[in-house]
Structure formats: C-alpha cells, structure tokens
C-alpha cells in the first residue's frame, strides 16, 4: 500500500505586520538590515478573537472547497498539529471535528510539536493508512505564536508569523499524488528550554511572568515565547546535515537525485548556512516564505504549496521535506511525484 499527499490549502490571517510596522514600533532595530539576511519582509497575525481552531477550520474549508464535495465525509482521521491549542483541554482536534462537520466515527488527535510537526503528522498519517486504520487523513497545522510574543521582543516579532495549513493524506492516488516515502526522526529534549513558553502548563500554571531587561534590552518573560537563537542555530547546524544523509540512505538515494529541498522555513540566514554545509545547490533549495515569515508547523506545507503553484512539479521528481526546532525535535522524509 502507498500513501499520498493529494492536496494542500492554507490560510493566512487578515492582519499583517510589515517591516515598516516593526520599524515604527522599534526605531532602534535595524529591521532592513536584519530583513535582508532573514529574507522576511512581512508576517500575518491572528486577530484578537482568532485562535487555533478558527484558523484550522478556515484552512480545512479551503481544502474541501477545492476538492470533491464528498471529501468531507470521506475523512476518517483528523490530526491537528499545534502548540497553541484553544484550551488546556479538551483536544482542539475535537472542536475542529465538530466545527468542520466531520463524521463522528473519525479519530481526532492533537500533536504538540512546532517546526518539525508537519513531518511527524504526515508520518503518523502514513502509519494510520498503511496499518489499515484510516484511508483519508486530514492533517491540519495551526499556530498562533504571535500571541505568545512579548511586545518588547523585536527579535521573535521579526521572525514568526501565524498561519494554518490543511493537507490531505490518502491511500488514493489522486490530485497531487505525491507519494510519501520513508522517514527519519530525531529528538534531543536536553535542549527543551532553548525554545520555550514556561508558564501556562501544569508546572507553572497561573504564574504571571515579569519582563526582564538587561541594559534596556528585552531579554525574556516566562509567560512569553523565549528563544535562545544561538542554541537553536547550533542545534540546526549540528543535526540537519546528518538527518539529510540518513534520510537519503534510508530511501536509497543520493543528494544529486533530489530535485528540490523544502526545509522548515525558519529564516533565510539559518537555512543558507545549513544549505552550504550540506552542499545543496542554491537552485534546488527552496525559500519562498519572505511574505509570511516563520509560520512554525505550517511553514513546510505553505512552502510546498507555493512551490507547486509558482514553479510546478513534474512526474518523477523527488522532494526532500525536513523540519527541525522546538523540542528540540527533527524529522525528514522524501516525496515522490508520480
């Protein structure tokens, strides 16, 4: 049995945050210079009353609208990947099942992963299909990191954007018919605190964090997103080249046989360092997220969808997808276009 990605749709919130907006908020921040390196000119922010399930429903409805009217009833499993659930409990996937009007006989779970989450979610979808537990898995990624970013945190504000994406993984070879090959996964929880929101879970449930400044520069607030950029960069630089080699090996391929590489769109600066280290030719390495920023779990499906629409894919092509980040967690797979 084979498993395929048959279609992708994504949703971007209405409100945008341009470099000019950030510059007006933080005149001391050399946004143009930073942006020329990160490649990010714009991001979208979820509305005040717009949350994970709202964006997930928007993305999924877009997917349903561009497919057969029967598709909604054919979905037999929902995987919602998010780190920004509507509530501590219940599972946001249950809320989305109801709001989308999916069958009550389906399975619905949340996956709590960020930048590697899409890879893990399509890996789970493939497993559900190949083991005969499901036939049409709706994978939704939806994150609203902007709600976690402190207003003084110009660094993270520059990088992250909100978005949701809906991907149809199926046992039927239809639409894109992009065959999902073998996976490589990796986890290093020793770096859990390099990308973290400390407050709000069971350990620090009701704590209200305080803004910490050093020399008038914002450092952190435990109720907001904290990212040790250097540690995350170090992790990426160390694990991604090895993950790429292992993924090629597992799929009996060599680097030159891959037509395109679509990695988690962290930022252009970090990706370029990794690309050079691995030796991937520039023309095969995709960065097309300058207008949306780093959308965490949705960054790979958005980049993949944009690549399909803007460049196109041809029969016989092989694409490597790789995600890495918060956890620290990483994973990669190969997609073959049939």
């Amino acid at each position, binding site marked *: 049995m084979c498993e395929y990605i048959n279609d992708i749709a994504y949703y971007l919130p209405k409100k945008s945050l341009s470099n000019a907006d950030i510059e007006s908020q933080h005149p001391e921040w*050399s946004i143009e*210079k*930073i942006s020329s*390196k*990160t490649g990010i000119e714009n991001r979208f922010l979820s509305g005040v009353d717009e949350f994970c399930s709202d964006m997930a429903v928007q993305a999924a409805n877009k997917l349903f609208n561009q497919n057969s009217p029967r598709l909604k009833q054919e979905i037999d499993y929902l995987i919602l990947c998010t780190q920004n659930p509507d509530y501590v409990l219940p599972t946001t996937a249950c809320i989305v099942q109801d709001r989308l009007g999916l069958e009550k006989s389906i399975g619905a779970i949340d996956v709590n992963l960020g930048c590697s989450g899409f890879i893990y979610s399509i890996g789970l979808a493939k497993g559900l299909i190949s083991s005969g537990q499901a036939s049409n898995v709706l994978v939704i990624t939806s994150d609203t990191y902007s709600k976690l970013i402190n207003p003084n945190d110009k*660094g993270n504000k520059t990088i992250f954007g909100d978005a949701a994406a809906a991907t149809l993984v199926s046992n039927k070879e239809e639409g894109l018919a992009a065959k999902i090959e073998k996976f490589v996964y990796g986890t290093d929880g020793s770096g859990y605190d390099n990308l973290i929101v400390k407050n709000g879970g069971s350990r620090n449930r009701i704590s209200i964090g305080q803004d910490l400044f050093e020399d008038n520069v914002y450092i952190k607030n435990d109720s907001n997103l904290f990212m040790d*950029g*250097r540690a995350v*960069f*170090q992790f990426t*630089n160390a694990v991604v080249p090895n993950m790429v080699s292992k993924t090629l090996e597992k799929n009996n391929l060599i680097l030159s046989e891959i037509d395109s590489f679509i990695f988690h769109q962290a930022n252009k*600066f970090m990706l370029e*360092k990794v690309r050079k280290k691995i030796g991937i030719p520039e023309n095969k390495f995709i960065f097309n997220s300058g207008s949306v920023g780093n959308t965490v779990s949705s960054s790979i499906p958005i980049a993949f969808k944009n690549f399909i629409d803007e460049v196109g894919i041809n029969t016989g092509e092989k694409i490597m997808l790789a995600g890495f980040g918060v956890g620290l967690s990483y994973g990669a797979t190969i997609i073959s276009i049939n």
Partner: protein
Amino acid sequence: MEKFLEIIKLELADTHSTIDENTKFKELEEWDSLTGMSLVVLLEETYGVSIPDEIFKSFNTLGDIFAYIKEKKCVNI
C-alpha cells in the same frame, strides 16, 4: 591567526574591509547580531571552544576573540 581571520572573512560574507587583530568588529558595516551568533557557532565547531554570550559581548577586537580561544584551547591555533 591567519586561519582565524579567514573564518571571520567568510562569516562576514567576504567583506571588503581590511581586517586584522586590531579590527573593532562591532564597528564593521557588515556586522549585526545574526553575524555574531553565527560566528560564535562556527568558532565552536572549528575550535571546540564555546564562548558564552556575556564573554563575547565584552570583546572589542578580533584579537580579543582570538586570545580567548587560544587560552581555552591551550594549543597553537
């Protein structure tokens, strides 16, 4: 020192500025926080010496970075 300066040059995307041990790197046109972050990671990979943020902040010249690595490495670099 030559190899060290080569690494710095590469990190500064082949800067046109002439650099030596007396160069105040934070004053270079090409310098920014991303370059700093990337340089520290690259130096750690190359020399196996980790430079804590607060120590790196205290450096003014490229010679300061070189001296720190040399001292921690305890061998000729």
